[in-house]
């Protein structure tokens, strides 16, 4: 799975360039993101604007990333979730767990507020 990254000060934007994060590739996604965390990145924006389909496996691996960052005083926010994927987050109540923003600009506002406190 190809992932595009972009550093903005202390925030790393991670954008999976794939149409789906699901059972067949979600572990690969998690491994790549954990590598980025292990390189010292503690504040992540995951931009899901290219992803048309997410299943419970993809969701599970995002939870895994959230848990790892929580143990390292880090943060992960999601942005660009497509309409067809919002129901999955709602049914599992993960829309109450993750900070979710419509786009990268809004996600950066979360960090600019949080990191200046």
């Amino acid at each position, binding site marked *: 799975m190809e992932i595009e990254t972009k550093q903005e000060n202390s925030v790393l934007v991670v954008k999976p360039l794939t149409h*789906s994060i*699901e*059972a*067949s590739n979600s572990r690969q996604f998690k491994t790549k993101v954990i590598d980025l965390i292990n390189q010292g990145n503690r504040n992540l924006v995951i931009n899901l604007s290219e992803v048309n*389909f997410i*299943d*419970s*496996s993809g*969701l*599970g*691996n995002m*939870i*895994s990333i*959230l*848990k790892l960052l*929580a*143990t390292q005083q880090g943060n992960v926010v999601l942005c660009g979730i497509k309409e*067809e994927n919002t*129901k*999955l987050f709602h*049914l*599992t*109540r*993960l829309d*109450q*767990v993750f900070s979710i923003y419509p786009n990268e600009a809004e996600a950066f506002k979360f960090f600019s507020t949080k990191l200046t406190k």
Partner: protein
Amino acid sequence: MDNIVVKVVIDSQLSHLEPLRRAIHGICACKIENKEILSDIELSIQEAVTNVINHAYQSQPGHEILIIVSLLPNEITLEIVDSGLKNDKKTDVTQHKLAEIDITDIQQLPESGMGLFLIHQLMDKVAYTSLDGSNRLILHKSIITRM
């Protein structure tokens, strides 16, 4: 439109899920134009067949999974048939406590086991039988037909 039954067979490999999803989506789109219902069906079939591959067939390729799609006047049924290990959890949705978990405790959030919970949320009726070595998960979804 007459009742239409379409059968699809895949091998027990996760890499076969995407073409399966696309096939099921295409078949159901002959009957449904509601995008939300199509998405519900697509996610449910993904979760159901992933469970068969990972649990019934223990992630081993080389086993057949049969999916029978029935386009009926007011509903679509999807039957997922395998001959792997029986999954007792499919008969008891109450085993899935996802809706009751304290979501403020991040470290307690489940990273797996959400598939069956989602299927029950997305489908109108779910049934599971296991008889003579054949496991059958039957999903029912009410539909809005084309005018």
